[in-house]
C-alpha cells in the first residue's frame, strides 16, 4: 500500500472519529455506571431497539462468559427495553431518538462511547441477537482468550456471522424471555459461504448462508456481509468503518492468514430468525433505517410471505464450537 493511500485512510479514520464526536450530542445518558469499570474488565457494546424479550438471556450469556460491563445505546425503544436495562447493575445506558441510519447504523454512537470508555480494554461489539462462540468457550472463560491474544500481540479477533434458523416456519414456536434462542433456531448452513477480499481496507467480505440461499438466489451480490470483527483491544484512535465488518486502522482487519495457515477465529451465532422476525421486518421496512434502502428486509418480507421455512435437507444442527471448527467455519489456530 502506497503512502498516499495510507494517508487517505488515516484522514478517513479521523473523519469518522470527528463524526462520532459530533454524534455524541444525540445520546442522552440514562444510567451511567462507567465508574465501576475496572482496569482489566472486558466490555460489551451494543445498540438495540425493542429487544426486551431477548435481553435476559443475552445478558446472562455474556456475564457467564466473563464480560464485566455492558454499554448500551437504546434507539427509542417502546417495549420497556430502557427501564429493563437501566435496572441492571452492570449496565450503562444511553438513549437516543435520532436516526439509526444517519448514525451509520449505530456505529457512530458506539465509536464515541468506545472512544470515551473502552481505551485499553478488550471490547465485544455485538447486537442483542448475536452470540459469540470462540475456541474452547465451553471450558475457558473469555479472559483466557483475551490473555492469550495479549500474549500473542493480537489486537482483533474475527467471528463470522452464522445465521441460525428453526426447522419449519419461523413463527411456529414463540420465543420466551430468558430462553436460549438456539433451542428454537438451532440450524445453520454449513458450507455455502463465498469470500472475496476488499483490497482497500484489507478485510474479507463473506456472503452466503440461508439469507443468500433463500432470499437472494438470483442477485447474490446483494446478500448481506457476514464477516465481523467483534472482539477488539480498543484504542481511542480506532474507528468502525461499516457496521462491525470493517475497522480502521486497516491492520485490525487482517484477521486471516495469507500464507496457508489458520489464525484463531470464532463465530457469532445470529439468532435473528425467531418468531419476532416477521414483525421486526415489517416495522423496519416502514422505518427504512437499514442498509441499502432496507433491501434485505424487503427481500425477507416478500419471500417469507410465501415460504417461511429456511430449513433444508442439508441444514446442520448446532452442537458446539468443536463442530463449527471441524466444519471449517472457525479455527483454533495455534491456541491449544
Amino acid at each position, binding site marked *: 500500500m502506497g503512502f498516499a493511500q495510507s494517508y487517505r485512510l488515516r484522514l478517513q479514520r479521523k473523519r469518522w472519529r470527528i463524526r462520532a464526536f459530533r454524534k455524541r450530542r444525540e445520546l442522552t445518558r440514562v444510567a451511567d455506571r462507567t465508574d465501576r469499570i475496572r482496569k482489566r474488565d472486558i466490555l460489551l457494546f451494543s445498540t438495540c431497539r425493542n429487544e426486551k424479550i431477548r435481553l435476559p438471556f443475552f445478558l446472562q450469556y455474556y456475564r457467564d462468559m466473563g464480560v464485566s460491563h455492558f454499554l448500551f445505546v437504546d434507539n427509542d425503544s417502546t417495549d420497556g427495553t430502557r427501564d429493563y436495562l437501566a435496572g441492571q447493575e452492570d449496565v450503562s445506558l444511553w438513549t437516543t431518538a435520532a436516526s439509526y441510519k444517519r448514525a451509520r447504523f449505530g456505529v457512530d454512537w458506539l465509536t464515541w462511547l468506545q472512544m470515551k470508555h473502552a481505551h485499553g480494554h478488550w471490547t465485544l461489539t455485538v447486537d442483542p441477537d448475536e452470540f459469540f462462540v470462540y475456541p474452547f468457550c465451553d471450558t475457558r472463560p473469555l479472559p483466557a482468550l483475551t490473555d492469550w491474544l495479549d500474549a500473542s500481540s493480537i489486537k482483533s479477533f474475527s467471528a463470522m456471522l452464522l445465521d441460525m434458523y428453526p426447522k419449519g416456519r419461523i413463527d411456529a414456536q414463540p420465543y420466551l424471555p430468558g430462553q436460549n434462542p438456539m433451542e428454537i433456531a438451532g440450524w445453520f448452513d454449513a458450507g455455502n459461504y463465498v469470500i472475496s477480499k476488499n483490497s482497500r481496507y484489507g478485510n474479507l467480505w463473506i456472503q452466503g448462508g440461508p439469507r443468500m440461499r433463500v432470499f437472494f438466489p438470483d442477485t447474490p451480490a446483494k446478500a448481506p456481509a457476514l464477516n465481523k470483527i467483534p472482539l477488539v483491544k480498543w484504542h481511542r484512535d480506532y474507528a468502525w468503518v461499516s457496521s462491525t465488518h470493517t475497522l480502521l486502522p486497516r491492520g485490525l482487519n487482517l484477521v486471516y*492468514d495469507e500464507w496457508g495457515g489458520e489464525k484463531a477465529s470464532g463465530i457469532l451465532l445470529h439468532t435473528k430468525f425467531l418468531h419476532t422476525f416477521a414483525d421486526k421486518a415489517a416495522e423496519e421496512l416502514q422505518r427504512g433505517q437499514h442498509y441499502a434502502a432496507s433491501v434485505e428486509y424487503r427481500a425477507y418480507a416478500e419471500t417469507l410471505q410465501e415460504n417461511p421455512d429456511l430449513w433444508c435437507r442439508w441444514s446442520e444442527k448446532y452442537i458446539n464450537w468443536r463442530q463449527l471448527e471441524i466444519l471449517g467455519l472457525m479455527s483454533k489456530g495455534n491456541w491449544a
Partner: protein
Amino acid sequence: MTVGIVMLVHTALNRAEQVARHWAAAGCPVVIHADTNVPRRVFRAFRKSLEDVERIRFSDRHRCEWGTWGIVAATQAGAEVMLRDFPEVSHVYLASGSCLPLRPVPELTDYLAARPDTDFIESATTADVEWTVGGLDSERFTLRFPFAWKKHRRLFDRYVELQRRVGFKRRMPNGIVPHMGSQWWCLTRGTLSAILADPERPTYDRFFQRVWIPDESYFQTLARIHSRRIESRSLTLSKFDFQGKPHIFYDDHLQLLRRSDCFVARKIWPHAGRLYRAFLTEDPATRKKTEPNPGKIDRIFSRAVELRTRGRPGLYMQSRWPNWGWENGATCAPYAVFQGFSELFEDFEPWLEGQTGMRVHGHLYAPGGVAFSGGQSVVAGAIPDSAAIRDYNPRGFLTNLIWATRGEQQCFQYGPADNQKIAWDLARDGNARIAVISGAWALPLARSRADFAEIRAEAARLQKIEAKFIETLRQTETKARVHIWTLADFVEAPMQALQDAVAELGARSTRRLSEAPTMVDLTGFGQFLQNLKNQGMHPHLMGDFPAGPDPERPPRKAPKPYLVQK
C-alpha cells in the same frame, strides 16, 4: 537428598505464593527472585505474605526484560543464595512463578536421588537446533544486541542487518562451544557451584551479557564444561509455539497433564483454578516411579502449530485466506472432471456412479443451472443449485463443494458451453483428474434440428472455447492429471480409453470394467462434419474422424453395448 527451588516471578504473585508454599511444605528450600518491574509496594506485601515460611528466602532483584541478561543475573543471584543458605541442597531446580508441580514432591526427590550426578539441562549445539525464531541461532552469540526486541523491533532488526553486512563477529571466550536449550533446568550442587565459582566467570559473564536470549544459553553452555553427566532434557514440560512463546495450560488440560507424568509444567494460566487445586492439594498414597512422558501433549501442541502455519488444505474461511499459490492444495480432496463423455455416452453418469461409487454430477457449470447428481436442488453444505450464486464466485463454489463432501469423491461433467472462469482453477489443482474427449460437444449439435447457420456459429464458438481449455490444460504450470483423447481416437477403442480414464481416478475399481455405457448413434456424424467444412468452418478437435457419408459397414440395427469377452 534435598532439592532446592529457585523461582523467578514477575506476575500473578498470588499463584507464585501458593506454589512456593507447596514446595516449602514438602521440604524444599525456595529462593524467590522477583522482577524489579514488580512495584515495591506489591513486592513488600508479597514478601510479607510468605514471612511465616521458614524455608523461603528472597534474592537481590534484577530487571528481567525478555531476551536480556537480567534473567541470567536473577538466576545467578537466586542460585547463590540457595547454595549459601541451604547446605543440604544437592540439586537446584529452576522454576518460574507460573510453573506448577504435577507430581508429588517426594517423587521428584526420589527420581533425583536415583540419579545423584546427573544434570538435567537441555543443551544442544546451535547447528543442531531448529526451534529458534527469527532466524537467529549462531548469530545470537556472534552479534551484538543493544536494542530491546519487544520495544524497538525495527532498530533491533536494522542493527542485526547492519552487522551482517559489515561482517561483524564476536569471538567466543576461551574457545567455548555455544549450546542452547530450554531455560528451565535442574543442576547438581557440584555443577552449579562450579559454574558460579569458575575463576573465568567474569569473562563469561561479560560475553553473555551481550548475547541474545542468554537465559537459553548461559547455563546450557557452561554446564558442558563443568558437568560430569548431562541428560539433555528439561524436567519441566514447556512447549513453545511458532512465535517462540510458551503454550499455556488451562483447566481442560487437567487429564492430559496428569497422564504426562512430568514433574513440573509451564506455563499455567493464573486463573486455571482447577489445575492449581488438583495438583497442589492431592496427595496420592503410592509413589510412582514412572518416567516423564510428555508425548501426547507434545502432539497436541505440534498439531496446533501445524494448523497455524499450514492450515487445512482446501479450506477457505474467515481466518484462512491464502494468497495465490499458498493454498497447500487448491481443494481438499481428489475429484474428477469429464468433458465430452456424457455427450458420447447416453447413460454415462449413472454408469460411472455404478462403476466407481463416486458421486457423479451433471454439468455443474452449465449456463442455465447447476445439475447436481440426482437432480437435487441443494447438496451437502447447503449449497444451492442457483446458477447466479455459482457464477458469483465460481471458484468458491468448487472449493465449497469439495470441502463440504469430504469423504465422498466428487465427479462432474464439464464442457465448452459451461462457465469457463473455473478452467484455470481446475488446471492448476493437483486434486483434479480431468478427462477430455475433444470435439464431443459436436455430437448433440449434429442431432440438433436448429437452423444450420446457427449450428455452425455455435460449433465455431464451442470449438474455440475448447481449444483454449485444452491449451490451458497443457500449460507447464498445470498440476491436474489430464487425459485428452480426440473423439476419433476415443471411438476407435472406447473400452480401453474408458478403462484408462477410470483408472486415473484412483477409484477402488482396479478390476476390469465389466460393462460399458451405451454410445450414442454416430450415424451421420461424419456427414455433419463435412457439412460444417462445406460451410467454411474447420472442425479440428475431433481428430481424424472420417468426414463425409458413413463408410459402408455391415449394417447394425441398434447401438449395442460393448461387452468385454472373457
